[in-house]
């Protein structure tokens, strides 16, 4: 199981490097798709089916949105020059970040024993044992997002609403300019 997940993660890393380095805009957008697709397969292997469904469909929708909104007839390739000073500074920073991250991850429990098994009074134990009795739902994840942690769902609905409002407000200025000039 670990080996399969490791191999898929290596494919994701290769895909993301190709995505960020290629010169063709359409190839860059298409190269982001294996990252999302293998991520969805890993979710399925890890025992999270609702998230696998969500991830697959969201990834297809994001591909459609990116292609429809950024590919134009007159802009298909990217010409850029390298800025060496910025590149070296960024690599140094990323290297330092990497070292700190490795040190921090040594304190995590090993892969396969989540922290709620080591601590019997954690909330996940309570949700698993009392989920059916207190809420009546067989799907414990649904019981969590709508009964135990309903405020988070309310916040999510608000964020989605606000982001649509923001997108509409940014693009609406054009219509008013057009009607003012005609």
């Amino acid at each position, binding site marked *: 199981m670990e080996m399969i997940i490791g191999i898929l993660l290596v494919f994701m890393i290769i895909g993301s490097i190709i995505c960020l380095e290629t010169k063709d805009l359409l190839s860059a957008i298409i190269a982001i798709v294996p990252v999302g697709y293998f991520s969805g397969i890993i979710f399925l292997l890890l025992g999270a089916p*609702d998230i696998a*469904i969500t991830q697959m469909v969201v990834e297809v929708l994001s591909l*459609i*949105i990116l292609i429809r909104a950024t590919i134009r*007839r007159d802009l298909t390739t990217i010409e850029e020059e390298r800025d060496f000073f910025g590149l070296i500074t960024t690599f140094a920073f990323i290297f330092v970040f990497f070292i700190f991250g490795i040190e921090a991850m040594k304190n995590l429990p090993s892969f396969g024993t989540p922290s709620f098994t080591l601590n019997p009074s954690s909330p996940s134990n309570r949700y698993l044992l009392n989920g059916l009795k207190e*809420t009546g739902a067989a*799907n414990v994840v*649904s*019981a969590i997002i*709508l009964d135990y942690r309903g405020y988070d769902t309310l916040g999510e609905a608000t964020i989605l609403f606000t982001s649509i409002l923001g997108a509409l407000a940014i693009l609406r200025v054009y219509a008013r300019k057009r009607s003012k000039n005609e």
Partner: protein
Amino acid sequence: MNEEKGMSLIVKTVTRWLKGFIFLFGAYIVVFGHLSPGGGFPGGVVFAATFILLTLAFGREYALKKIGKILASELDSLGAILFLLIATLGIYFGGIFFSNFIEKNHPTGNFNLFSAGIIPLCQISIGIKVGASLFMIFIILAVIRVVFEDGKGKLITTEKKDKK
């Protein structure tokens, strides 16, 4: 212009057959959210995918006739208001915001469709909201014509849809 009318005949025929099934699958994921994997969020995204498929296959006029921009934004607000209404009714019946006030120990027992209190109702309202929101994003970004000025002060319209 051929690309105004959508895609080829094969795509249009297959879409015409399949759109009902895809919509039904999205509704199944939403309504059975408390018994099998799924819930409001994946089901809402599948709803939006149905309408986006219609837009891509038939062209923008057909899809905007079926579910226009104003209807999508009204459904979005309707989903949000329904969710808040169910949560506020929790205060009236149960004393706390968001309390699960419908009777949980139903005579027909657990593992049925009509169990789990307010959870299926909330799932349906979230499904409507997420579906309408994502369809509105798609319409705003990829279908609406945009006007801008060039350097000399003249107005140019640009088509947002450039298929290769």
